[in-house]
């Protein structure tokens, strides 16, 4: 509806690119004396402003509401009690946190709701509503029919990331009214990220580099050209753009080039951006120590490294290839990976794609002795190293250990990991793998 409500104007200013959603939601929310549908389903990708919009609209319109997050309220008891606390304005005393009412089933919840005064036209918001499906079976249909069950004019708003069809079950066939929040497109993202301008100006204050909005927009364009194809999550993009901006203006700070020299700025930032694409969502600094390979930080004993390599070979090679790979002068041909490779290509699915296969302890030892150049006696130390590898979760055991043909193991590390381990002991692992032609 064309509306002159100042709240709408305010919301549209504070949440750009969400005009249509604001209008839709405004029509559905019980302000003034509007009648509302019993249930509204708000859905869309992560960080598209669902919760922010619902929360701020309810606050601005001064509607009585309770917002609970289903990840926090993981049982129905906590859920019911926190909704009741919020709706009854019950303040929890930190020294003695007694809820408004003890309530652990739907029937108590309904009777408590009916007992609270002035709940007509109030709203209950359930964030991360997909969790409802993992709770009691009667909860979701009960929530969807809360108005019918309580005879109160309560509106339920469910906020979720996934489509509503995932909620269908035997006992739910109520379709709520849906409001979809589409993901921001590139232009929207540019517009929203430009709002950061004041923030980055403050960041750059100490460096005494002066720049204008256009400069920042240019940077964002470069930034999005690298990141947009991998990530459309606004929060993550904002974090990334902020943390990389200082690196972008680094050459200007060091007086290597001027603000207008966009070409050399681009040359400087492009490898940095590519690197930071790697740590997307991880929230670590690219340059920090954490990024160094785990294989290097893990200092295994010499024989343990060989054992791990042997375990990897045992997991990813089939047992019938062992003879060709490890026995010296087997048959007429010397050991060559080539014919093993040609043979294995016939099989449709490569071992590498199916993950590690279990192997016996005997096979592990056999391969271990085959790849180890020197002679080493079989003793308790070796056995202990196998179990410490299991302890480190580099290997895992299969079965309960009571089976007659001994314990079986599986290797849990990736190729990159074992490759760098093998390098430290000067062992060429590719030579011994039948399926890794593509690596």
């Amino acid at each position, binding site marked *: *509806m*064309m*509306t*002159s*409500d*100042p*709240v709408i104007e*305010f919301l549209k200013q504070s949440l750009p690119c969400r005009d249509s959603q604001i*209008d839709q939601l405004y029509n559905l929310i019980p302000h*003034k004396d*509007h*009648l509302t*549908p*019993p249930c509204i389903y708000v*859905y*869309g*990708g992560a960080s598209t402003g669902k919760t922010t919009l619902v929360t701020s609209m309810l606050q601005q319109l*001064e509607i009585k509401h309770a917002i609970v997050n289903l990840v926090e309220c993981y049982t129905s008891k906590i859920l019911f009690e926190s909704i009741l606390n919020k709706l009854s304005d019950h303040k929890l005393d930190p020294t003695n946190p007694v809820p408004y009412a003890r309530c652990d*089933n*739907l*029937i108590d919840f*309904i009777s408590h709701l009916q007992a609270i005064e002035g709940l007509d036209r109030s709203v209950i918001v359930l964030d991360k509503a997909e969790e409802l499906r993992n709770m*009691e079976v*009667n909860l979701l*249909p*009960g929530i969807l*029919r809360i108005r019918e*069950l309580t005879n109160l004019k309560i509106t339920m708003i469910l906020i979720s*990331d*996934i*489509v*509503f069809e*995932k909620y269908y079950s035997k*006992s739910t*066939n109520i379709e709520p*009214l849906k409001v*979809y929040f*589409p*993901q921001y497109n*590139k232009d929207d993202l540019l517009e929203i990220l430009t709002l950061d301008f004041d923030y980055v100006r403050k960041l750059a204050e100490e460096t005494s580099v002066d720049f204008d909005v256009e400069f920042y927009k240019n940077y964002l364009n470069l930034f999005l050209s690298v990141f*947009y*194809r*991998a*990530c*459309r999550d606004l929060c993550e993009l904002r974090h990334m753009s902020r943390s990389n901006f200082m690196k972008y203006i680094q050459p200007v700070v060091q007086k290597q080039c001027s603000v207008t020299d966009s070409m050399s700025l681009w040359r400087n930032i492009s490898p940095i951006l590519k690197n930071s*694409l*790697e740590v*997307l*969502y991880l929230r670590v600094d690219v340059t920090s120590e954490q990024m160094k390979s785990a294989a290097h930080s893990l200092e295994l004993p010499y024989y343990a490294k060989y054992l791990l390599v042997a375990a990897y070979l045992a997991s990813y090679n089939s047992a019938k290839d062992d003879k060709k790979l490890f026995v010296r002068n087997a048959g007429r041909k010397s050991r060559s990976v080539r014919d093993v490779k040609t043979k294995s290509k016939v099989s449709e*699915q490569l071992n*590498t*794609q*199916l*993950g*590690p296969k279990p192997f016996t302890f005997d096979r592990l030892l056999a391969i271990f002795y085959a790849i180890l150049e020197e002679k080493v006696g079989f003793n308790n130390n070796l056995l202990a190293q196998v179990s410490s590898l299991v302890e480190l979760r580099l290997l*895992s055991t*299969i079965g309960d250990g009571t089976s007659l043909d001994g314990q079986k193991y*599986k290797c*849990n590390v990736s190729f990159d990991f074992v490759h760098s381990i093998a390098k430290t002991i000067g062992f060429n692992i590719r030579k011994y793998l039948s399926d890794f032609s*593509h690596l």
Partner: protein
Amino acid sequence: MQRLYKTFLIINILNGSGKDKIYKLVEGGKSLQAFKKMENKLLHILKCLKQNLLENKECHGYDKEEQQIFDLLERTLDCGESNSALLIGPRRCGKTLLVNKVLERIQHKDNFDTDCILVKLNGLIHTDDRLALKSTTSQMQLDNVVDGKVFGTFAENLAFLLECLRTGDKSKSRSVIFILDEFDLFCCHHNQTLLYNLFDVSQSAQAPICILGITCRLDVIELLEKRVKSRFSHRQIFLLPHENQTSNVHTVGDAVNKIEYYLKLPEGNKKLQINTAVAKQWNRNLNNLLKEKKFRNVIQRLIDLDNSEAMLKDFLVKVIFHFTGENLTVDLFQKELNILEEDDMIKVLQDLTVLELCLIISMKHHLEIYDNNPMNFEMIYNRFMKFANANAGIQNFQRAVMLKAFEHIQGLELISMLSNTGSKVQKEYQFFKLLVTPEQILDAVKKSSGLPTEVAQWARSSLT
């Protein structure tokens, strides 16, 4: 609201950006007033329509069934007969509404308050027999009797309730009417103790009770245990959509009549704050709309999809809540129909990043090649890398970034983990199945803008 408006102005002034707007507001004061007036008028109309749609408690058709239930309850009330019956009908056909209507009629009888107690239970909220009994006790207003005693075990509670039902002979005792909504859920209770005891009382003529179950399951009798089944009277009342009943809409004419019923404004009703002229104008517009051929085509399409009245009502609710402007138009209905036919899944697919969509396309190809065998990340990764290496235009991504993208797809439930693989497997090798169809993927690829042409072509190519 006034206060909010002021804060808005203050915020604007603080921002320094709203000055022009305020001038405009002051200048346009007159037109603003006219606008407000019009808006108010619309608000009242919409309010009336919403009331009509959301709070309409009228129940049409089913006159015969209504009389049947009424007679049943009346005999329990007047003659002290014990009865049991099941009311069976598809979801949202108006079962509970019908029962409520009958109950309202029977509550108007003079002897209801003195001779009868009504107990309403709902399978959704009374999830076990203990809760059901507790609720029954309070609805029978026996709380005060229980109050002094310690609320003991289930068996004691049950015995107490039965005792209360047993006291007095047929002529003196008050009759009890039990309404069990979502009856099928009561059948899941342990040993069906509640049902067994209720039916047993109704059979053995101890106290006059009437049990009316409401359910949507046609096979509900099969859910009852043998000893429970034998105590049930096997009186079933079906609310099935017959030809001659009005709960279903069979022709466009029916649908148009229904729409007229819901969307027409009452003329000359003072309480609604709509003056007669406005209401007349609205109704005239509505009538014109209903006669339009284009509109009838839209409605035809709608009832081809689903011809239940509940669905039509839902549709009208959506139309009214999305209603903007002054008058209902065909376009409005057409737009709503398009939304109804839209696939939400495609919208979600369109929201994916290029990388994620590429992974989905890889999955589609994988399933085509391997005849719907399950896939894991490693397989999809290799398939995508093959494509990326063959096309220079595709940006290359780190493995970790792709694993993140894969997990995001999993979070959106576009793929789901196969349950038979244990949790011990590394996540790269965990098997998944795809939950979207190839058609949906192609549709999404067609609709999303800014996709590299190589990717679109790759999606269309049948085998890579």
